[in-house]
């Protein structure tokens, strides 16, 4: 929001500058800023203790928090484990797939 305003202000004060290029850059930056979330989905085969251990290892969560997420997966079918930049989200999903959990990354809407 603040970046768009800055471009608009600049357009008004310097009409000879190639403003459209700056607007494109702003949109790309906004795209990159869209947060992603790491979601783990329920799977009847994976053991509850195993899933808890994986959450502790991958995200460094204390046992209580890891168990809370595990139970959310178990009862609600999914749990959002982490939210942030895409590259990091991809890294976490890769780790989770290495432990054979059903995990996806999703754009936060």
């Amino acid at each position, binding site marked *: 929001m603040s970046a768009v305003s800055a471009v608009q202000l600049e357009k008004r004060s310097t009409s000879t500058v190639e403003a459209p290029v700056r607007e494109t850059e702003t949109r790309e930056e906004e795209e990159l800023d869209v947060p992603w979330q790491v979601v783990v989905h329920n799977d*009847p*085969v*994976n*053991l509850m*203790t*195993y899933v808890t*251990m994986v959450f502790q290892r991958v995200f460094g969560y204390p046992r209580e928090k890891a168990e809370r997420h595990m139970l959310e997966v178990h009862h609600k079918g999914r749990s959002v484990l982490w939210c942030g930049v895409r590259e990091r989200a*991809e890294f976490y*999903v*890769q780790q989770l*797939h*290495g*432990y*054979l959990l*059903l*995990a*996806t*990354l*999703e754009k936060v809407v």
Partner: protein
Amino acid sequence: MEISRTGEALQISDLDPFLAELLRQIPASTNSEGAPDAEARLFSRPSAEKEICTEWRNYVEPELRRLFRSSTQTVAEDLAQLNGNEKSLRNRGLTIPFEHADAWLNALNQARLVIAEKNKFSDEELNDHDRSPIGSRRDLSLFQVNFYGFLQEFILREMERG
């Protein structure tokens, strides 16, 4: 069968030939070839976005395949202790170095997922731990999933103890 921790190893002793055979089948049970649903479960889609899935198949999936193969190979090497005298009715023993615990957890999980997917077990079946393994091939597969789960639970408990 008895299972315990001795220093830096897990000891499975008094292992009867039936359970020894189930253990020997772990590496083969991880094989998802010719079973598209099992393959899809081991290498599940990371996203609903096509572009991410394409990149994943090219760069991440080969890494995952290497990891899974490496775990299975470690387990197969440990299981070599059970080779020879397969037809003997004598009980056996197996020593698993504790540093192989992660590989065992991974291979056991691969095997459980592949067997469950190939047999399309329902939630009710997976929670039925008292079913006899003698009834049918399907019952035996379910017993296998539960037995491997029991081993995973033991390994996890020992990992927690440190």
